[in-house]
């Protein structure tokens, strides 16, 4: 019984020595770890991640302008144009020959897959034609 206690004590002493050596190795490895180097690597990884994130959301506003220009009715003249990417809304103020032309202009935009909905407001007829405000609710693809 006493002999077994002695053997266990010796084994425990060896284990303690091994543990102390491992702790020493860990401290040594930590000391070798250059803080600047690891920080720089972490920053670089973060930069790459964020860059991917930003590029995935990169907006092509000129495509939106191209789409509007190429789908504008020939007898419609735009007086102002407001495009908001965050709200995904395009507001067009324009003048057309008559209400029929306004309807045709609206149909052209309605047929686009990147346009969800076309709304009108303030259609008024003056001597130079029908003045209108057309609002397009568009999809993300409208800007890509």
């Amino acid at each position: 019984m006493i002999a077994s206690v002695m053997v266990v004590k010796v084994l425990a002493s060896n284990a303690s020595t091994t543990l102390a050596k491992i702790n020493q190795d860990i401290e040594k490895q930590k000391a070798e770890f250059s803080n600047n180097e690891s920080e720089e690597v972490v920053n670089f990884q973060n930069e790459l991640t964020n860059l991917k994130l930003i590029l995935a959301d990169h907006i092509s506003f000129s495509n939106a302008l191209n789409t509007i220009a190429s789908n504008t009715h020939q007898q419609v003249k735009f007086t102002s144009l407001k495009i908001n990417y965050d709200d995904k809304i395009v507001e067009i103020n324009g003048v057309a020959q008559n209400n029929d032309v306004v309807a045709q202009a609206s149909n052209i935009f309605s047929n686009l897959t990147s346009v969800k909905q076309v709304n009108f407001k303030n259609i008024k007829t003056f001597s130079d034609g029908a003045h209108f405000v057309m609002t397009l609710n568009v999809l993300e693809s409208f800007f890509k």
Partner: protein
Amino acid sequence: MRETTKQTLSILFITLFLGSSLFIFLKFTKPAFDNLNDLKTEIQNKQEVKNDLAKRKQTVVDVSNKYATLGESLSRIREALPSKPQLAQVLAAIDSIARPSNVIVNDISFRELAQSKTDSELKNKVFYNTIEVTFSLEGNFVNTKLFMQEIEKELRIMDIKQITMSQFNSSVVQTAGKAKVLKPVTTLKTDVTLYTYYQP
């Protein structure tokens, strides 16, 4: 000594021996075994920590080596997403795009937006900062569109977020023979809001 006394003494010795064995086991052997087992578990855990540390160190060294060989690509990444706002660079980029596009840029202003809040999905992510740049452009539709196309291609990432385009009447000087005359023209004025980014 009588036989019964001998038996009683034997039982007493055996009981004492067993009792003392149990006492030694509980007082010395078991704690020593428990201590040894605890040490073995701790050694195992520390060994895992040591291996993990070695692996991490190797990863850092590998990435660091890759990072050192990136060269020009690295400088392009830094230009696309710099570590400082570098507003002068943004101003220079807008100006250098405006001139060949034949548009006039006015009323430029910069504003740093609040950093996005962390939501549950993006926890532990390091956020970038956004700078809002507003300005107005004067030029015809084709040139304004050209300007926007070039802004989209610029290495420093810039995202146009909002535009408001309206017509206004202006005049240009034209020479008719020897005389100079003012000719009325319709120009577009476009108010632009764009975002550019940096990672501090």
